[in-house]
């Protein structure tokens, strides 16, 4: 079953066409990679799914429901969590407050506590720093916090925007280890990356976005070997 289905989506910022007739789908349990150069429209796509941007035309369905008829908070309530580009932790709030705000749409307190405990087990660093202001965390720790915060809403679908951005290779390895573990736990993901190799190696399927359009799609392993992808993104 398709968790996410996008048909013919077009988005523009004023005169700038950011997405032109994009169609894609994500099935339950998959990691789907979305790769493309700077400015290809990757973040725009995720922001449109999260209802931060109104598209010009097209359709987005999540679990068969019309996303474009929902408010941003409804999308989260229904089970879509978004880890934004650049992490965007709430710098002036503590690590734990950031995590608890991740569960803003949830109201069952014992379950929220349980989930918090689960995140602390997954990210022991965050437990050590639970009272620290999030703005004082290192880049890698902030990325972990952003992911853990998204998981606090108990999502069915996780949208990840460049989780490797600006991180040392060793930290990137940790983050992708966590991404694989989450996927093994059953979390479906749409993963945006500029690090095409890493993304495609970890994804079941992938799409290549160029200047707002999907120019290629296929199995992750096939795309890694594709001559055009190699030339454009893998060097």
């Amino acid at each position, binding site marked *: 079953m398709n968790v996410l289905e996008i048909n013919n989506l077009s988005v523009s910022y004023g005169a700038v066409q950011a997405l032109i007739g994009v169609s894609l789908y994500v099935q339950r349990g998959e990691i789907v990679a979305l790769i493309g150069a700077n400015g290809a429209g990757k973040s725009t796509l995720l922001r449109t799914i999260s209802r931060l941007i109104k598209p010009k035309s097209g359709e987005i369905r999540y679990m068969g429901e019309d996303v474009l008829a929902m408010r941003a908070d409804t999308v*989260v309530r229904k089970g879509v969590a978004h880890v*934004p580009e650049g992490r965007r932790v709430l710098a*002036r709030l503590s690590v734990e407050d950031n995590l608890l705000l991740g569960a803003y749409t949830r109201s069952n307190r014992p379950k929220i506590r349980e989930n918090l405990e689960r995140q602390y087990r997954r990210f022991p660093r965050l437990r050590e720093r639970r009272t620290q202001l999030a703005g004082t965390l290192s880049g890698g720790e902030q990325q972990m916090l952003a992911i853990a915060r998204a998981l606090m809403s108990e999502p069915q679908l996780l949208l990840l925007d460049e989780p490797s951005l600006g991180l040392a290779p060793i930290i990137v390895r940790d983050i992708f280890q966590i991404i694989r573990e989450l996927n093994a736990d059953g979390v479906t993901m749409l993963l945006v990356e500029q690090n095409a190799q890493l993304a495609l190696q970890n994804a079941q399927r992938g799409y290549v976005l160029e200047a707002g359009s999907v120019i290629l799609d296929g199995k992750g392993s096939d795309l890694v070997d594709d001559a055009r992808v190699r030339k454009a993104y893998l060097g």
Partner: protein
Amino acid sequence: MDFNVLIQNVFNGLAVGGVYAIFALGYTLVFSILGIINFAHGAVFTLGAYFTYAFLGARFGFNGLLANQQLPFGVPFPLATLFGGLAAGVISVLIERVAFRPLRNRGADPLLTLVSSLGVAVAIVNVIQYLVGAEAYSYPSLTISLGIPPSVMLGGERPIVIRTVQIIIFSVSMVVLVLLTYFINYTKVGKALQAVAEDQITSRLLGINTDRLIVVTFFVSGFVGGIAGTLVGLSVSITGPYFGIAFGLKGLAVIVLGGLGSVPGAVLGGLVIGLGEALVPAQYVGYKDAIAFAVLFIVLLVRPRGILGRTLVQKV
């Protein structure tokens, strides 16, 4: 200044400072969420005072559309204050709808909102004048209505006399301050407000309905503004439709002094200016306002972000 007078003045300053603090918090809440000063806040303060007057069941004067009118019922002063605050909160929410939201939805420059809120303030002043005239109104004496003694004396031989009204004003301000601090720091909605204040986009991604929180903010801001208006009206009188304008300016001095957008800063700024004014020697009392702004000016020379203003958080 002899010691008794000094103590009285300090107490006076605390009472006035407490009101400054809660009034200024109304500005601070809106500023921290939207990054703009709500110039209609002073007008909401005025309305709060008039609403309380009406809820007491008191009769309006000889001028205006509501001349000689009164509500068919009256409630005791504490309840009237609460209702006055709630009504001011509702008005504040309406102001957000009319003067803030339409501009925000169109992505207008925040500076434009400044002007539209100023316009609302002027309109409210005029409407008040149209409805109840320009005369001053005083609340019925608490001594009569609630049987409270006009003043209390502390100490034996040369007792310090403190007006009961000041004790009431100070206590009510402190209760409001404590409740507000609790609300902001320890409730789920309060945390969400902090999140929206820091980053609206991220807040939306976390499932926070930012428009609804902005409404909550305006309501709370109007509520404390209205209570402040009632307290000042209780201390002196409601001096007319322009009642809140001068006070509104003082409130601006308070938040700038404390540090724009800082909640503890607003409280500290309120108390500093309240005490500063109260300690002005009697023969210079006419220069009270100038002294408040002089203090502000000097502090800003030393600390351009105000006493507790934070340096900008480095974006990663």
